[in-house]
């Protein structure tokens, strides 16, 4: 599980690079790159969450709050104070890291369901603040006019340009995260996951590692939030509410939380299911969504990323 082979990664990113060109030639999926931008944004969050949940074994129901902090930092600082978007992005990440440290330090001492509740409560409080501080955030009607991104005069003003920008970030985060997993830190995290007592006896500073991973996840979510804000040019609180945190959790579970690939697969699948494929079912959409989720949970306990393992098992038999 710690060794991650390079070939699938290369193939995957080759497909990502070619995809806009393919989509252009098939009218029925001509709008898919647009969806892929959002899938990529979700991937950034789930990669961090996967490290936290799958590898360090800590649950978080507040990733949407960090996603929101990033988005609102970018939104508020660019719209109200006219600051440089890239700088705002960094400030957002800094704020998220700080908040994650302040919340994480006491919270991560909590275990299991207590941690779930603490993160859930924090997420709801952040949402209430986004919703209530109308002067600053625009309240439920949201905040519009957030500028797009540009770099050295190059405007990321079309779907495809933004697509490559987002996926460049995903690629970087992905490689960086794989390096963490394969490093000493990764081994320490696995140790924490299987037994905190044993890990601690081996001299692993548990709380430090947990907080670092929590902050890492928060920073990635914040980055995702900034990218979202600059792409949609609009943000409102309900994009960052509890249901989004749950949706992120579902992505991880559906994709498979013990493998980094699970984060990517889950983000893809949920994005396409909820933004594209399921609206075919009209008002029954929510039932189909719940049904698919339940079936995967029952039949694929390791998520979709576990399928290759299952197939390998069949061949061996």
């Amino acid at each position, binding site marked *: 599980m710690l060794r991650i082979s390079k070939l699938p990664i290369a193939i995957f990113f080759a497909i990502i690079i070619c995809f806009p060109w393919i989509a252009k030639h098939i009218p029925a999926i001509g709008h898919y790159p647009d969806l892929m931008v959002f899938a990529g944004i979700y991937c950034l969050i789930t990669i961090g969450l996967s490290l936290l949940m799958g590898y360090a074994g800590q649950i978080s129901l507040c990733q949407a709050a960090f996603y929101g902090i990033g988005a609102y930092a970018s939104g508020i600082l660019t719209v109200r104070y006219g600051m440089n978007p890239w700088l705002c992005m960094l400030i957002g990440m800094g704020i998220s890291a700080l908040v994650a440290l302040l919340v994480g330090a006491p919270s991560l001492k909590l275990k299991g369901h*207590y941690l779930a509740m603490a993160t859930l409560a924090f997420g709801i409080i952040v949402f209430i603040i986004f919703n209530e501080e109308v002067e600053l955030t625009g309240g439920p009607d949201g905040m519009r006019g957030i500028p797009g991104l540009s770099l050295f005069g190059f405007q990321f003003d079309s779907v495809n340009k933004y697509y490559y920008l987002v996926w460049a970030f995903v690629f970087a985060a992905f490689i960086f995260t794989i390096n963490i997993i394969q490093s000493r830190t990764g081994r320490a995290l696995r140790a924490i996951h299987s037994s905190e007592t044993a890990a601690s006896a081996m001299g692993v500073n548990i709380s430090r590692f947990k907080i670092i991973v929590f902050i890492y996840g928060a920073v990635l979510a914040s980055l995702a939030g900034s990218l979202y804000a600059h792409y949609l040019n609009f943000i409102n609180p309900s994009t960052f509410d509890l249901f989004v945190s749950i949706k992120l959790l579902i992505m991880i579970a559906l994709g498979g939380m013990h493998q980094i690939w699970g984060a990517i697969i889950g983000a893809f699948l949920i994005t396409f299911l909820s933004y594209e494929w399921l609206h075919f079912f009209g008002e029954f959409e929510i039932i189909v969504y719940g049904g698919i989720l339940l079936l995967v949970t029952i039949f694929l*306990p390791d998520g979709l990323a576990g399928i290759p393992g299952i197939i390998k098992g069949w061949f061996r038999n």
Partner: protein
Amino acid sequence: MEKITFATQLLQYLITGLTIGSIYAMVALGFIIIYNVTEIINFAQGEFVVLGGLVMVVFHVSAGLPLVIAFPATVVLVMLVGILLDRLAIRPIRKPSVLTLIIATIAASILMKGVAMVIWGKDPFDLQAFSGRDPISFFGAIIQPQYLWVIGFLILITISLSIFFNSTIIGKAMRACADNPDAASLVGIDTKKMILLSFALSAAIGAIAGIIVTPISLMEYDRGVSLAIKGFGAAILGGLGSFPGAILGGLIMGTIESFGAGLISSAYKDAFALIVLLAVLFFKPSGLLGSVEISKMKRF
């Protein structure tokens, strides 16, 4: 209309807070019953409450059954849903880690919400208050008769549960499962049956909560999540696994919301309850009455 005094206002906040808190407490009890046997937090708990209210509307309002028949009929039907939830969503899971189980209950709650939407539509429904809507005056504060029903039922449920778990064989068997499932199955207790029973029992309590709160707050298909969060918060605040904790947690949550809204800011009342919850957890990670042992268990 005469002006009311500050003292009367405080009394009113307390009465309303305790009533709403009783509902939270009932949801929390539902969480605890399943948690104690299975260590699962059943996120579909709020859906039981919704179903309780909506099924009761069908039996009592649409079919015109009298209260004394419609009430138990609703509870039984929702219990069946609880049993189905265990049989169809929880038991078939092949590698039941706690997180997978949580996701399964989230999936089930999404599914149940969707089915409720298709069956009942999106509009809220009303039930008649059990003993009319003429308010009772109490030192200047107002008590809606339905408030008394809510608090009364919480007391009734508490007494029944304590009798059940302390004095009946099945109840004791369930407690044994909760303490040590392996040992319990060694002495011949059918753990699977106990899990099934826990789901049925907690569905029943959810249904009762739904039936009695609908005359106060109406009921519609998507109220489950907010109730589940409040109930989960109450269970955690009181300390997971502890019945008195769940009740205490629920009442405290309700009262904080009520006084927070009345005295400080109604916009941030939900935040107050959660901040208090976080503060308690940071200083006492096992909740108010929870055992330290449980809070230290790590099941992911």
